[in-house]
């Protein structure tokens, strides 16, 4: 075995953190916060209605070929989820694994390929019976609400991180696209930030520390509204090369104006009060075109008139676009 191979426990941690990302995205509208290594379960998601999603996570390093222990793992997970159910505040009880064959039964294997979500009722009878037998073994067959049970599989294998995280990244990309269709290419960065935050969360002894949905979502907003990652989509009157050059040269200045609340709130209010007779989609560019001069007093120290005009326009676009992004995302994720 090469020394770069993850030890099973490090691999398990990694899977647990990434499973938490997937679970959060699955439930992003109703979720409030997430805790990795919670008081009761591996992952606990706090819902806005006060209930919780409990999840047991089991990983296999050679998941696509090694099925030797998958049944024991599921037995352990079911027992643990039964304990969580006893807490009385569960909304869902989810068993997450990277094994494509959680029941060690080749005939049911193809239903767990890729990102699979199977609630108890949608399982074939022989899988149901296996679970019921597991519950019976621990004396829970009469008590446990199988209606809350979900089997979730996430492909997660190899030491090549690109390959290992590909489903996670795809899930994030899909989500980001659903929120802001025009954004692209930030999936990997978001994933890195979330993995780091959630891993850190898992290491905290005090289980009261959670990662809020707000924290997670704001990371997306920050990255999406990063001026250097923005296209000059609204900026018909500035040449694309000029735009890129100005943004590169004056990134800090643009950001500082965009982030200054007193300045931004003025622009947002002006825009809200701006009445435009034409098409709705042209309102923003029209506002910038006709109103940029009213902010010129803020830039009196600049010598170059043409540059000043372009800078003001870019800053206005940026503030308004950021505002739009924030409100879109917040609506979408119920923040």
């Amino acid at each position: 075995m090469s020394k770069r191979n993850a030890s099973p426990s490090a691999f398990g941690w990694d899977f647990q953190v990434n499973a938490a990302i997937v679970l959060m995205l699955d439930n992003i509208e109703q979720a409030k916060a997430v805790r990795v290594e919670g008081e009761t379960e591996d992952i606990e998601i706090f819902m806005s209605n006060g209930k919780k999603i409990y999840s047991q996570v089991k990983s296999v390093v050679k998941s696509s070929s090694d099925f030797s222990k998958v049944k024991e793992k599921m037995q352990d997970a079911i027992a643990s989820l039964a304990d969580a159910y006893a807490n009385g505040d569960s909304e869902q009880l989810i068993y997450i694994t990277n094994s494509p064959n959680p029941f060690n039964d080749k005939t049911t294997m193809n239903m767990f390929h890729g990102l699979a979500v199977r609630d108890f009722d949608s399982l074939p009878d022989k899988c149901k019976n296996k679970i019921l037998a597991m519950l019976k073994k621990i004396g829970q067959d009469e008590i446990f609400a199988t209606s809350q049970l979900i089997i979730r599989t996430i492909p997660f294998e190899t030491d090549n991180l690109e390959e290992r995280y590909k489903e996670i990244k795809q899930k994030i990309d899909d989500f980001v696209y659903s929120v802001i269709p025009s954004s692209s290419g930030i999936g990997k960065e978001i994933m890195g930030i979330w993995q780091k935050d959630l891993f850190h969360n898992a290491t905290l002894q005090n289980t009261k520390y959670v990662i809020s949905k707000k924290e997670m979502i704001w990371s997306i907003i920050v990255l999406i509204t990063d001026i250097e990652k923005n296209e000059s989509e609204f900026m018909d009157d500035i040449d694309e090369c000029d735009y890129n050059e100005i943004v590169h040269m004056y990134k800090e200045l643009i950001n500082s104006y965009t982030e200054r609340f007193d300045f931004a709130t003025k622009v947002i209010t002006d825009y809200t009060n701006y009445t435009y007779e034409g098409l709705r989609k042209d309102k923003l560019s029209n506002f910038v075109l006709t109103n940029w001069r009213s902010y010129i007093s803020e830039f009196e120290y600049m010598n170059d008139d043409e540059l000043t005009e372009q800078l003001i326009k870019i800053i206005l676009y940026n503030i308004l676009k950021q505002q739009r992004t924030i409100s879109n995302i917040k609506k979408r994720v119920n923040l």
Partner: protein
Amino acid sequence: MKIIRTYIREGLFERTINWDDNVNLVFSSKNTCGKTTLLRALLFSLGYPIPNTKNIKFEHCIMITEVDCTRGHVIIRREGEYLQVNYENKEDKYFLPHDQLEFHKFLWNTDNIDILENIIGSIYIDQEKGWTLLNRGKVIGSIQYNIDQLVRGLSDRDCSELVFREKHIGNELKKYQQMLNISKYKEEINSIKDELVSETYEEDLQKELELLKYEHFTQTKELKRIDNVIKNNESFRKYVENMKIRVRASNGEEIPVNKDTIIGMNEYTDMLEIKRRIIAGQIARLNDKIDKIRLELPLPDTQLSFVNADTTLREFDRSIAKFNIDPITVSNIINKLKSDRKQIREQLAEETRRNNKVADEMFEVVTKYAQELNTEVEGRTSYLFTSNLKELSGALLHKLVFSYRLACIIQIEKKLGYKLPIIIDSPSGKEVDRENVNAMMKILSRDFKDNQIIVASIYEYDFNKVQYIKMQGRLINQQVQSFD
């Protein structure tokens, strides 16, 4: 040419040896009394690059040798690299080794370089290498002897073009040989240490470090900028809140103006906080990476870094690892050059030996003397140029060497028109019995009676008339009388 006397001064001691016109026997009953040193000193004083013996550092001595030659009475004074030559009221100065050839042209009165370069090899038999040197090789120090070259010189066959090409190829071969060695060494270090010695690996790390540092610098700057914006927003908030403004909503409700009621203010705070966290996280990751790379890089030089062998060796290995030589290509070039050189040598040999009267005559002489010394020689002139010495026993070679020298001397004298001195060190080799040595001396006294002969030995030989130069204790054994 006759050598009249040799004067040697080292420090406070000096000695003058007066050479007889005929036979001189430098003699001592035991070894290590300076016989060899005296013979070598004599050659040194004649401007030849002769290595020291352990007794005397020649370059620290003043040596004066007087000779009678075609130029008349010549006084040669050598002091280290300087040679001062007086003759017929004239004084010439030579700087060695640069002017060596010029001086020898003067001394031996010939411009024939092929002969000049082989004179010492012909007239002098060194005790160490001389008796195994048959027709080509090292005479003493860096002085070479080559029968082909000598024969070409004696028969006026100019092959300088070919000789130059041969030398040129020889030089190239040496370089390619070194290159091959290096490429082999390179393969060795590459296979052993791989990336460890490759400078590119360390260079890459260094570059990566620079990049990371730059990124660290920009991110730290960005963090400061955001902190500044956060501070400004915060003071704006306090400023507004401190005004204690209250506004009335359309439903008549009174609302205090603060961060919770100002639309968008909390959003901005959240956004900047996250931004700050993302950047702080990036900086932390950069710090990790920078630390890791720093651990892998060698320690920067401190004042303790006086050059140590390990560093030099590593430096060498790294330089070698950077070399881009393909051993197969180099091997091919070497083989090609070797075959070229072989061709040129064959051509040279052909040019030298074809229908050469001088060679024939030399071979005759060799055969004659060898027979007299009870040695059979193959019956063809080409044997003169043989390179197969392995089958010759020690005693046989000894006698052949002697015959060769005499043959050379005879031919050179014929060409130059005067008699040469013959200088022989310790003719009684381990494997040659007294009888044979006596036979050799007999030839000398019979056929070379007009030559000046200088023999160093622990034995006495039968010569009609011989001057004994007895060596006892130190060679230079008298206090200097006057420092002229």
